[in-house]
């Protein structure tokens, strides 16, 4: 079975004080996560205050490479099937995402992926992941 990836409408991105700088970075092809300035720990999704110690946080650029922790191809109600996944970044943080630009039926846990960016309805670039070339 083959289920070829197709673009689907992503709706409008949610712009608020927590996401503004993140989406400014994705516009130039950079994926950032948050690190605590006090305890130094990384976390996801990004918060203004560290979820380990409530310290202040700062943005940090990451490699955008990782592997699929879990993946599910949502086929109904359609019309466009899509692969929702958790990807564990090489930095040790796991984020919810979609896997794109591939045969969705070929995806498997443990597979290496790298970040790509897809435009939302308002042009905001949304980070997603595609399989690394073999």
């Amino acid at each position: 079975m083959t289920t070829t990836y197709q673009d689907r409408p992503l709706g409008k991105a949610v712009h608020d004080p927590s996401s503004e700088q993140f989406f400014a970075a994705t516009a130039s092809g950079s994926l950032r996560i948050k690190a605590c300035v006090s305890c130094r720990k990384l976390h996801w999704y990004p918060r203004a205050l560290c979820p380990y110690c409530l310290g202040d946080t700062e943005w940090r650029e990451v490699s955008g490479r990782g592997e699929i922790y879990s993946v599910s191809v949502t086929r109904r109600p359609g019309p466009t099937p899509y692969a929702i996944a958790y990807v564990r970044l090489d930095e040790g943080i796991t984020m919810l995402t979609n896997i794109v630009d591939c045969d969705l039926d070929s995806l498997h846990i443990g597979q290496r992926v790298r970040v790509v960016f897809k435009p939302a309805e308002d042009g905001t670039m949304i980070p997603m992941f595609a399989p690394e070339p073999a």
Partner: protein
Amino acid sequence: MSIKRKACIAGAFEHPTRKAPDKTVAQLHAECARGALADAGLRLEDVDGYFCAGDAPGLGANSMADYLGLRLRHVDTTDTGGSAHLVHVSHAAQAIAMGKCDVALITLAGRPRSEGASGVAPRMVGPGTPDLAWEAHYAPVTVNMYALAAARHMYQYGTTSEQLAWIKVAAAAHAQYNPDAMLREPVKVEDVLASPMISDPLRRLDCCVVSDGGGALVVVRPEIARSLKRPVVNVLGAGEAIKGQLNGQVDLTWSGAAWSGPRAFEEAGVKPSDVQYVSIYDSFTITVLMQLEDLGFCEKGKGGRFVADGNLISGVGKLPFNTDGGGLCNNHPANRGGITKVIEAVRQLRGEAHSKVQVPNCNLALAQGTGGLLGSRHGSATLIMERA
């Protein structure tokens, strides 16, 4: 300080409707309240504590206490999704133990079926929900946020679709005796595997029903319970927990039941092997398997083998579960299945389940709920009860 034997479940009522386009949500709550109070043998004016969650219309308790004509001295609107009404039983027992109320009424009702709800539609969450900016565009829906946990469980432990299907088979085996159940046809493992794939690896028959309806419970002081005509059901112990994405250290191989379960067993002073009947939240088949492991009914990772071959079927297997047909076949009112889990456990402890599914001499039962999304954030509640 403990709630062990400090409060009793004196009234339990499950609304018989599964589709109610001609009734308001407030009316359904009130019909459930009437049913549970009649079951207990108590009157509206006896109620001095009220518990409801996000399914209550308007401004929750403010709206519903006024609609029901209640005069209260204790109110609790804890909302942990579908597990909320299990938490309410625990909180009601705490309030009774502290002298804050004597007769606590808990109601749930909703009309998701009439209103066209679906497990493959985006979940309605309010603006300002903090994860929205980071997740909404990936189209997380109810079913795929459980499918991700199922996929990982299969990868890590070798769990199979056939094993998950056995959970549905057991629920359907029970539902055939429930005249109110939405789905009463027995099914085979092959039927589950032949149903359409919704979100890998979950198929249509791995998913619960969408139904209208509701339920209510009355929790009272032990002296009051003993003065009534109904069998006495004691609350023995309870646990609650919220599990999320663990700050990005996501681990989908266990649920919040791994936290709430041990707390409940410790308070009750019993162990899993003592339990004769379990009501386990069955939003999806994987939800059941995960909670059974996390509660300690089997080893982590061996849930697939545990549920296979009819082990959850009353009279057949070792651990009878959801003898009303559960959310998979009977009812999932307001998309929240916690209250019906308690109601069927009460029926079993009273000896009032259908004769084909009644567990003989059922003295110790457990009800377990997982509300929200197994694959991201959920509230877990465990409740252990005994026949006095």
